[in-house]
């Protein structure tokens, strides 16, 4: 039995040095969490998002983010530097933590855009977000209330009240992929837990913000981010194999350009009709509630990038399931009396027509739409505004 006892009290003893090393690591990790995450980010989303939003906006309020060499999330997931499409990005938030200019809240607002990251438009120049495109088209201000998940009714009403919108249009950006998630409950808070509702109502917005701000600050570990970046640098397929490449699907378009997909982009609901019916019922309720507040709802159905570009690949993929799911959605919304505009046909036509010009509607290294896509979306909404 080993019994190499030693009792060195020297600072060079492993028994003292290594625990102190770990303590230093721990202190460094905590300390770095108080430093802004921006230099470690390659795009606005991670720098601006609050993991524990207060009762208002999902992003850090009154902040501006700028990056000259931002690139797409899918290229980062796959650790594929050669596939990055660099672009300049600016992301500004208002006092409530939504992606809007810092200028005083427009009192001549005529609409609100709600939806997920597509509505947020963090990948886009600020004049190319859907709300900016709509503002130009309509000649009136559209407030960007995009968030990681579409706002629940109570949050939307609060946003409308803040910008003084008493009559107007709510554009609900609905990505095709959302159809295979269950809709929220038809309650104003979208079935947030009773405990959370109680806390919000008891403490009030100011105190929620005071608690959530340090929690958000401490949540992300820059040390972990640095480690992950170093690991990705080493996995360059020369020194070490790129273990991240398997997380993305690399394809080639007919025009020779590379395009990256996430496997999830090709997913379709197991039962598209039931999924569509559930969403139809939810949005019908949403629309009725908004009508009582003087707001009209228009749902913008955005197809997945894979639905539009799979037929245009060098080796095309079948999208019949996606088209069927989109058809079910359109039918369900019509049956439920929900006003909806689908971009499917227009996008398919535009994508095929301009493929050889390399004029795309979505980013090639990210799942989101680009300025061309939002411009067409705004045009379609404008054209259907009276229906």
């Amino acid at each position: 039995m080993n019994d190499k006892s030693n009792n060195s009290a020297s600072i060079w003893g492993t028994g003292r040095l290594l625990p102190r090393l770990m303590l230093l690591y721990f202190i460094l990790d905590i300390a770095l969490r108080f430093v802004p995450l921006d230099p470690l980010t390659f795009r606005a989303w991670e720098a601006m998002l609050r993991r524990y939003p207060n009762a208002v906006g999902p992003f850090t309020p009154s902040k501006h983010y700028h990056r000259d060499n931002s690139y797409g999330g899918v290229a980062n997931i796959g650790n594929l530097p050669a596939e990055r499409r660099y672009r300049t990005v600016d992301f500004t938030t208002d006092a409530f933590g939504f992606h809007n200019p810092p200028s005083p809240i427009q009192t001549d607002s005529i609409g609100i855009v709600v939806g997920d990251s597509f509505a947020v438009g963090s990948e886009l120049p600020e004049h190319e977000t859907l709300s900016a495109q709509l503002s130009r088209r309509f000649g009136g201000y559209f407030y960007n209330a995009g968030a990681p998940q579409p706002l629940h009714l109570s949050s939307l009403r609060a946003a409308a009240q803040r910008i003084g919108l008493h009559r107007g249009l709510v554009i609900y950006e609905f990505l095709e992929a959302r159809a295979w998630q269950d809709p929220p409950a038809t309650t104003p808070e979208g079935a947030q837990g009773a405990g959370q509702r109680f806390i919000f109502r008891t403490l009030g917005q100011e105190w929620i913000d005071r608690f959530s701000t340090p929690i958000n600050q401490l949540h992300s570990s820059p040390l972990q981010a640095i480690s992950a970046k170093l690991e990705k640098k080493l996995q360059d397929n020369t020194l070490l194999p790129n273990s991240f490449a398997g997380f993305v699907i690399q394809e080639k378009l007919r025009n020779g350009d590379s395009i990256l997909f996430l496997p999830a982009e090709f997913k379709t609901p197991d039962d598209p009709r039931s999924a569509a019916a559930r969403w139809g019922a939810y949005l019908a309720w949403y629309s009725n509630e908004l009508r009582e507040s003087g707001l009209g709802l228009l749902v913008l159905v955005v197809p997945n990038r894979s639905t539009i570009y799979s037929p245009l690949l060098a080796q095309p993929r079948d999208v019949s399931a996606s088209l069927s799911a989109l058809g079910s959605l359109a039918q369900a919304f019509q049956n439920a009396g929900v006003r909806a505009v689908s971009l499917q046909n227009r996008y398919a036509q535009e994508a095929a027509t301009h493929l050889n010009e390399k004029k795309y509607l979505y980013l090639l290294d990210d799942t989101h739409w680009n300025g061309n896509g939002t411009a067409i979306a705004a045009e379609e909404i404008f054209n259907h505004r009276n229906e």
Partner: protein
Amino acid sequence: MLFNSLIFLFLFLPVAYFVFWRMRTKNQRFIWLTFASYVFYGTWNYRFCALMAFSTVVSYFAGLGMLGAANPRRRKLFLVVPVAIDLLLLGFFKYFNFAVATFTGVGTLLHVSIHAPALNIILPVGISFYTFHTISYMVDAYRRVITPTRNFWEFSCYVSLFSQLVAGPIVRFRQVETDLENLDHADRTRWLNIGWSFFAIGMMKKVLLADTIAAVINPAWKDVAHLSTLGAWLCVLGYTYQIYFDFSGYSDMAVGLGYLFGIRLPQNFNSPYKALNIADFWRRWHISLSTCLRDYLYIPLGGSRVSAPWLVYRNLLITMLLGGLWHGANWTFVFWGAYHGVLLCLYKMFGRLWDRLPTALQRVGTFFLIVIGWVFFRADNFSAAAVMLARMFTLSVGPLFPGLVGLLIVLAIAAVLAHVAPNTFEINHEWKPWTIAGLAVGYSLALLAIASGQQLPFLYFQF
């Protein structure tokens, strides 16, 4: 919870350590270690804590029963029944579906339709290890090698101690009995340096060597049919070093953690790739298992003290077959065990000739035979093993897999450490300033690698 995880390093270990050394009495420390170990085990699957607790209680009362039973038949009953219970549990959780699949396969071969139910059984992590702990305890108690403890918490601490719970070493009660008895007198600083030294070395072996090798060769193992000859050999050599540094790294960490809590755990690896022959290899590789197999299986079968030589070979083969099966419910493990059994038999027959070879040739030859054996151990099935062997021994060219540069660097380091350098039990853990700086740098790199978020579990957690 893995040893190489942030939650273990920065939450579990500090809390377990500081609370332990605040306790003053033996019993307090036993209870605390038992509680902490169950928390550790529960992070894998809390439901199986009850299984381990049941096995612990059964074995504890078996020991007490043997203590109080004067009648030899009664004493035997207190051994046979609990051991049977332990083996039944192990057999059910680990081998039921394997047995069903085997019977079904045999039926198919014989054109007999067998409809046997396949259950959705989750293998409890570490069941192979803690079952051997309890069985060795009961057998040693029966043989009067140890006196069973009356202190339930001492026994449960021995069975469930988190440092060796899920992947060994397999610790016999007699090996830690003295330290457990003196746990209240343990000096916190006595083994502090050596404990951390073992832990850090083990961490670096696992995270920097084994995991790096795995990152390169695992994708290649999935596409064996397209490997070139050189690629195939690099894959197999890579796995040879990966499994050694993964497992010995874990054992070093376990030993280090034991030291931190005043308990000395046995050596599990003694530079196995320096072995001169296959028997020597099994005296150096997974020592805790091989000695268990020797003491509780080979010797009771008769060992080498039997009337006829063929009985020795029979005993060797049975021992190694079951040793292979212990590693996993797959015929490739059984074959690997049989392969080593055959090699041991051959050494028994022709060992004198082998021993006359030059030392270098003995080492190279032994290493070559071990490498071939790992092909079956690593392969998912015999087809994959056959394809790999074919790629290794027929000349084929092709593109080498990504990460070759990194693999060659790490393999070179691994080879030096495995074949030339002293092992963790041979080095002097009184580090000089410049060497401890190197250790600190290596440990820091391991911490950074862990922080990146991608940790591979220990290879031996599959058992």
